[in-house]
């Protein structure tokens, strides 16, 4: 049996912005089945690493390979729909209802709007489907972001502080989503300050300090 190719590989990656260096010489390999916990102080570069893995962040040096595609080449466009990224800030359109937001997302993946409706029900927001996103509480908006993950079932999950703003029930939902993805041969990266919870969920953890991985 041949070995599975890695889900993502960073090789000597550094990122600069303005006149500061955010990441320095990052080497990192994420294999199928990995659930990687990333810890580190505020401003250390955790979000930036997630954006590099999402192929959204231009790098200064090094090579980035995600789901078999070179992230600096046009190939990245073909793998992006298989990446699920949740950032610090909800990406919903405030004037649209939750159903419309998710429906837009589902249709952009060529899926039916009913998929969106059932994903909303799965995260416990069926009753708020017709509420405008900007009239939903912060935690409800975060939940809707997770519904997006349920709609597209990505193989590579990139979650920035996934447990924040979620109540106890919803936290379990996150864990279930991570488990399911990893069990099906995908991978997940979890950035968090809640070490205890992420340690129990992750298969391994790394620490980032001043832009360097330890």
């Amino acid at each position, binding site marked *: 049996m041949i070995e599975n190719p890695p889900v993502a590989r960073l090789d000597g990656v550094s990122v600069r912005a303005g006149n500061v260096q955010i990441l320095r010489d990052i080497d990192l390999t994420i294999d199928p089945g990995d659930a990687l916990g990333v810890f580190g102080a505020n401003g250390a570069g955790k979000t930036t690493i997630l954006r590099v893995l999402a192929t*959204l962040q231009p790098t200064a040096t090094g090579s980035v390979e995600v789901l078999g595609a070179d992230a600096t080449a046009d190939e990245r466009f073909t793998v992006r729909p298989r990446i699920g*990224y949740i*950032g610090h800030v909800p990406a919903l359109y405030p*004037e*649209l209802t939750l159903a419309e937001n998710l429906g837009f997302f589902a249709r952009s*993946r*060529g899926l039916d709007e009913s998929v969106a409706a059932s994903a909303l029900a799965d995260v416990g927001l069926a009753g708020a489907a017709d509420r405008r996103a900007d009239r939903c509480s912060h935690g409800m908006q975060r939940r809707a972001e997770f519904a997006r993950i349920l709609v597209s079932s990505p193989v590579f999950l990139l979650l920035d502080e996934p447990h924040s703003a979620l109540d106890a029930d919803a936290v379990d939902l996150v864990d279930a989503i991570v488990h399911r993805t990893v069990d099906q041969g995908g991978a997940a990266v979890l950035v968090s300050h809640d070490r205890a919870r992420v340690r129990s969920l992750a298969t391994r953890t790394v620490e980032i300090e001043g832009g360097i991985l330890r």
Partner: protein
Amino acid sequence: MIGFGSQAALIARRDILRERRSGEVLWVTLPFGAIALLLVPLAVGTDAPMLRQIGPGIFWVVVMLFGVFISIRQTSSETDAQRDQLALSGLDPAAVYFGRALASFLFLLGFQLVLGFVTVVLYDISLEGWLILPLTFVIVAAGLSLLGTLAAGIVATGQNAAALVPLLVAPLSIPLLIGATQALEALQLGRSSLTWVLMMIVTVIVLAIAGVLSAQPLQETR
């Protein structure tokens, strides 16, 4: 994946829905345009033949300015998080560009119709040769929405880039404006307006090509 056309339609539908909820074009931009048309006679003096002469020109200038504004506002209100998710969605950036432009195009057509009506009433314009107008309206709306959407894409890529906007808008809106004003005039003077229409069409094509070529690089910069 869904086809290019459905992708663009999806984006256009999203923008129309957002506008319907926020009502920005309807309640802020449109009334402003109408007020502009109303203010001109008050400002330049109510000399009827002169107003008749400058009316169409003023109409087109107002359409031009507000048109670009409408399309810029429409797009540049996007947050970074929304931009990230759109980039990950796998939608073709060129389709996104056309979808946005399509929504602005429809707003602009409506805008032109309302303001056109206001102009005719206020400035006592002769509508001889008006048959060319629907064609001009469509071409101008297309050109301005493509132009504004392109400019908005540039604004969204970061503050330094905002300086590009006037640089793009100035040279590209001029052919549209000249074409729009001259097409009707040529017809009224009994000459052919084909050259003007062609000039506008060429501008629209140039804009469409430019938008398509720049859509991906603009999506990827910020």
